[in-house]
């Protein structure tokens, strides 16, 4: 009888951590209206906190990847969970906008940033050779699952028990996950004398040395010299703008503007989550089989069209709204597995995590800028249609960008640097 490969246990624990992190991050969207009521802060103020959170969440990525190379996945993840718990607990006693910026923006942003897409890419990259796309899809879907579980619950708490109860629950959940991660998560297969799932050789990645900060910037240097990096980062910028930034932060307020109850609106986002799980798993499966560029083209194209149809949907028949949600949910983060795959093909197995961290940073930069812009549009002009329309068009630009990736040369690995980032050349002895 064959025992289950430890890679699956690592994947499961990572799944739980990622699920929690996504739930924590989704919290501000249910807090917008309660905070507005309690403190009289307008939507633009709260949008600033959300934007800071999104930016730091994203910018942490490459540094988190470098930290994981240096200190290991386990330590970094446990530290991140503790940070999130601290930040969430302290929000309950805040009374000024700058405290919201500091706690939800900076502290929770940094904490969750270490448990983001980069963690999923690193775990899938280190522990799996076969089924890598599928595992990546599953780990990415963990985010959606987390929102699915946390959002309606948090929305309900915020409405009936007050937003502080919601914040405390987030802190408790983070503290509960920490010991599980500490016990079960392992850095790499060779720590247990194993090979990665489906690998024919043992991994022998040298430990990275030197400052993780310097290494993160070395990764950036590798990236910016490549045209494909800009195409990937550009399309991912748009991806972030059109999902987290626009729908994630503003769909609930926009629905409430159209007379929907808060819980109903929050479950709207949850329904997107259900289809997101399906879509992302399917995307992981497809990534193992088809050209990632065409997959991305279809994801962005369909997303762009559904955003352009959104203004027709609000205030019209329920059927249209449901159709939009199904459509949109299916490719919410389905873009992640093909993008990671392209990054790995272009930048090589050793370095892609840090470079992908920067690409992911572009994703969050897009999310933050649109979250802010849409909030401003709503505050100033009283209508979201412009924001929805322009991000729909941006998605179509992304569809054009991804088809142009690696067209000037074959799509295979291009230039594998002689040594991984952060590993010193062995001295002659």
């Amino acid at each position, binding site marked *: 009888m064959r025992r289950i490969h430890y890679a699956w246990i690592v994947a499961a624990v990572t799944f739980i951590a990622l699920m929690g992190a996504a739930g924590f991050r989704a919290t501000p969207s249910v807090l917008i209206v309660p905070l507005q009521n309690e403190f009289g802060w307008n939507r633009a103020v709260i949008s600033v906190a959300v934007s800071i959170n999104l930016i730091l969440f994203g910018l942490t990525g490459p540094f988190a990847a470098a930290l994981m190379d240096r200190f290991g996945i386990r330590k970094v993840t446990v530290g991140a969970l503790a940070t999130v718990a601290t930040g969430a607990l302290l929000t309950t006693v805040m009374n000024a906008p700058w405290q919201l910026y500091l706690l939800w923006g900076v502290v929770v942003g940094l904490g969750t940033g270490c448990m983001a897409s980069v963690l999923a890419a690193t775990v899938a990259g280190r522990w799996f050779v076969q089924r890598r796309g599928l595992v990546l899809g599953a780990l990415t879907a963990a985010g959606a699952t987390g929102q699915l579980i946390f959002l309606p619950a948090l929305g309900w708490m915020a409405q009936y028990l007050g937003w502080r109860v919601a914040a405390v629950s987030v802190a408790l959940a983070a503290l509960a996950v920490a010991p599980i991660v500490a016990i079960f998560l392992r850095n790499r297969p060779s720590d247990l004398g194993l090979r990665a799932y489906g690998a024919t050789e043992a991994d022998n990645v040298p430990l990275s040395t030197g400052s993780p900060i310097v290494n993160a910037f070395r990764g950036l240097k590798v990236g910016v010299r490549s045209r494909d990096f800009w195409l990937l980062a550009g399309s991912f910028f748009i991806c972030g703008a059109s999902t987290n930034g626009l729908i994630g932060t503003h769909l609930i307020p926009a629905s409430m503007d159209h007379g929907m109850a808060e819980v109903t609106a929050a479950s709207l986002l949850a329904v997107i989550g259900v289809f997101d799980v399906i879509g992302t798993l399917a995307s992981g499966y497809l990534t193992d089989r088809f050209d990632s560029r065409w997959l991305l*083209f279809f994801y962005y*194209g369909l997303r*762009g*069209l559904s955003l*352009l149809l959104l*203004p*027709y949907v609000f205030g019209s028949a329920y059927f249209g709204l449901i159709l939009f949600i199904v459509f949109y949910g299916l490719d919410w983060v389905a873009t992640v597995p093909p993008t990671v795959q392209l990054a790995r093909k272009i930048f090589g197995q050793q370095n892609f995590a840090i470079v992908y961290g920067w690409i992911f940073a572009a994703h969050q930069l897009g999310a933050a800028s649109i979250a802010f812009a849409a909030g401003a549009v709503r505050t100033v*002009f009283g*209508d979201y*249609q*412009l924001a929805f*329309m*322009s991000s*729909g*068009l941006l998605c*179509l*630009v992304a*569809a*054009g960008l991804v*088809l*142009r990736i690696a*067209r000037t040369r074959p799509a295979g690995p291009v230039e594998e640097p002689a040594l991984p980032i952060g590993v010193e050349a062995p001295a002659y002895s």
Partner: protein
Amino acid sequence: MIPQVAFAHAQLIQSGPPPDAIMAALPPGVELLFNESVSPAGAGIKVFSPSGRQIAGRSVSRGALLYAPMASDETGTFVVSWQVLAADTHPSRGAFRFSVGRPSANPYSSLLTGGEIGTASPLGFVLQALARWVHFVGFALVFGVVGYLALTRDKQRNPHLVKRLVGTGIVLLIAAEPLALLGQLASLSIDTDTAIAVLASGFGRLLALRLAGALLVWALWSVESTWPILGVGVAVALVDGASAHAIPGLPVAGLLLVATHVAAMGLWVGGLAAFLIVPDRRFGRYAALCFAVAAISGLLLAVAHIGLLQALMSTAYGQALMIKVLVVGAVLAVALIRRRRLEFGVLLTAIAAAAVLAALPPPR
């Protein structure tokens, strides 16, 4: 060619207070009744008090009625300026005055002569027509050329020039949209509020859909996939149908007719452009078919819009249509003597006439 008289759609029928009225006290609001459903463009209604303060609140529309509350304790002459979008997204604006107590000077009285009630500005009209011309030419260069490539299945011969044609077409398709927005704004007022309102209206949605079509083509052209691009072309033609003048009573038929007309025109004109670079004997029949479809659908549209022979002579729309028919006749004559380059040049003129037609209101 550019008429001086009113040609925008929504016209003010009645207002409360009425123009030039002299009243004892300021009413609580301004009420405007139009000849069709309207939505406010930008502020909608602005009311300037004798001291020059804007005293109107937020405008709301219900059907053909536009209302804005106002409050002021000044006496003298008030100037009301309004701008609206009709249901088919055509803009119109106007201004009038009324007085409380006795008439006085008003710093905004220049608005009263700025535009007659229910007129769009000539500049706006020219820009709108130009935008449509650029759009139609872009449409033809993209979809006509790609259609020609699909017909001749020949990407190898002289691909560079043909690619340039499609690239130019994509640029034109995209460039047409800011022009269209500018045209719309020039007929109202060029400010951010109005731009937001125009973009948030049905006009903005159609503009976004046309841009979406252009961007999709830009994406697909990077791998030169022919048939999907032609599919996008059908969608863009349908959007053009949706943004054209509706035939009263038969909206779907009108939409389909316009879409067919635009598509056939595009295949013909763009095909001709590609033919000039990469001649192929099969083009003659193909062009004749496209022309026949364009002519029949155009004829049906003309009958639906003009109806009476009288309107053909007496309205700007009828006159522009006659000019277009003459130009197309010229194209046909040139085509028969097989001077392809000349044919292409005259066709661009025919499209210009079509663009003017699309910007003019049909007689009703």
